[in-house]
């Protein structure tokens, strides 16, 4: 136990002295999360610019949502020039009681937003016309109430795409930095000869692996605390569930990243080779983490997601942070994460046989 603690302390002290790596581990996630917060928040409230002839019904223009900037034209210009030069997302013309909409479509997400807003406007106008029709009818004919009351099972009307991404993003940063830094640290131990020196004492191979887990575990907790507090107090993110479970999931994920990083480092001889594993180990995890909807992909590809710990951590963090659930809803994910840790810890201990067979 003393030796295990000595290794944990050494790992923690080394990282503490390496200020640049420490800053990268603790501050880089905040910079990227902030950038993504603003990028995805803006995209959610897209401003749309729509052009139309000035002969169009005034009521139609007034029914447009607030996010739409309407530009009217006295003469119908050449559409391609207009859409390009005036930075319009769509141009609406009326032909024989039919709306003819031409979309710029350089950015499909802007087109989708423009489409939704035009459809909503058409529905509003149609409803208002129906109202007028009912009012002009004799007797007690009344227009049924068309107002929509919107309720949300999770989150509220202000929920953005970033809200969905945030739990997964947090897990991703915990995984990425712990994986990379621990893998590099182990590689350095091997290339500098310190691993050999450690194992030239009576220290157990398991003590080396567990000592590393202890040392990095502390930083994983600090990293998670910083990300969570920053997101709550500066980005105004809401965490519906218990913070305890957020930390439990993050620490298990960090431990998983650590033992996988240590395992992968045994296949690399230089730091450059270690970096080459990122496209293979890290990038696919982003695809299967839940950030990208995978409802329609083939089953056989979806199966790949089961081999990545970030899929389980992302799912569990979403359950806690967005849905406010607790242990009853995340125990399976936690179990799988523990399974990953146990499996790769054993593989790491076995891998150190390269330096000492017993």
């Amino acid at each position, binding site marked *: 136990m003393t030796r295990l603690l000595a290794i944990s302390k050494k790992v923690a002290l080394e990282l503490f002295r390496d200020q640049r790596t420490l800053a990268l581990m603790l501050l880089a996630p905040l910079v990227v999360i902030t950038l993504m917060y603003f990028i995805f928040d803006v995209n959610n409230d897209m401003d749309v610019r729509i052009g139309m002839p000035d002969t169009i019904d005034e009521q139609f223009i007034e029914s447009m949502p607030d996010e739409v900037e309407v530009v009217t034209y006295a003469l119908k210009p050449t559409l391609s020039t207009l859409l390009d030069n005036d930075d319009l997302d769509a141009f609406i013309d009326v032909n024989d009681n039919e709306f003819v909409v031409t979309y710029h479509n350089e950015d499909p997400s802007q087109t989708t937003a423009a489409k939704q807003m035009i459809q909503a406007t058409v529905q509003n106008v149609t409803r208002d016309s129906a109202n007028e029709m009912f009012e002009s009818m004799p007797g007690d004919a009344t227009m049924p109430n068309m107002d929509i009351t919107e309720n949300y099972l999770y989150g509220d009307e202000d929920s953005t795409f970033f809200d969905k991404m945030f739990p997964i993003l947090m897990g991703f940063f915990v995984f990425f930095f712990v994986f990379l830094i621990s893998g590099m640290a182990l590689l350095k131990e091997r290339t500098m000869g310190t691993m050999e020196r450690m194992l030239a004492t009576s*220290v157990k191979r398991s003590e080396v692996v567990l000592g590393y887990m202890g040392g990095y575990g502390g930083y994983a907790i600090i990293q998670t605390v910083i990300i969570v507090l920053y997101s709550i107090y500066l980005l105004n993110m809401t965490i519906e569930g218990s913070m305890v479970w957020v930390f439990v999931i993050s620490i298990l994920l960090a431990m998983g990243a650590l033992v996988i990083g240590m395992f992968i480092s045994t296949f690399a001889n230089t730091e450059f080779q270690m970096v080459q594993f990122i496209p293979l180990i890290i990038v696919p995890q982003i695809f299967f983490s839940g950030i990208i909807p995978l409802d329609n992909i083939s089953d056989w590809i979806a199966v790949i997601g089961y081999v990545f710990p970030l899929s389980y951590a992302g799912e569990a963090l979403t359950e806690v942070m967005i849905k406010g659930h607790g242990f009853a809803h995340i125990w399976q994910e936690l179990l799988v994460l523990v399974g990953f840790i146990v499996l790769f810890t054993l593989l790491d201990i076995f891998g150190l046989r390269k330096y000492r067979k017993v």
Partner: protein
Amino acid sequence: MTEKVASLVDADKFFFFKQVLNNINLDIYNGEILGLIGPSGSGKTTCIRCLLGMEELTEGQSYIFEQKMPHRKTMNKIGYMGQETALYESLTAHENMTFFGKLKKLKGEELTHEIDKNLELVDLSGARNKIVSQFSGGMKRRLSLAITLLGQPDIIVLDEPTVGIDPKLRRSIWEQLRNLRDSDKALVITTHVMAEAEQCDKIALLVSGEIHDYGTPKDLMNKYEAASIEEVFLNLEVTT
């Protein structure tokens, strides 16, 4: 009284199809300094790594204190210094010593005493709180040696211990190594420096993975009609 503390018996080692050790039989005694000398690539480092069980033998056995190696608990009786300095550059000399001392199960006053004693031995007491990355190459080697000697190991195995160390300090280190020998420790040292080889009690001449000759420096000089071990070594290269 000298006793056999370690041995390699009929040891063969292959790296894939390349044989790097061929039928090595070597006995190591306490109170004795054994020098392994030979040209680069002759198998000196592989030989000591196999002796310690850090490298698996293809054939044959390695024993330390009658225990078949590798044996984890026996490692605590060994002080090993490889060719790399193997230090944590972002830690101080004292922190490096403390860490490896704890791995050797030293603690409390015993640990403090061992650190002080060995830092003094390699003349690094004044630099104990200095970060290792600020050390010169020679200082790193000395610190590495100090770590090796922590815990008073019974067998001390040093792979090129005095590379990069100035002649004055080298002399002082050899004096300490002789003191260790006199206190009944067994030392195995690989070296390229022939003048150092002459300070060993026994020498094993290793050529192409085989022990070409073995004996005291005096015996070998007589046998090869040479005035120094360097001459023995040169004659050996001519004849092989």
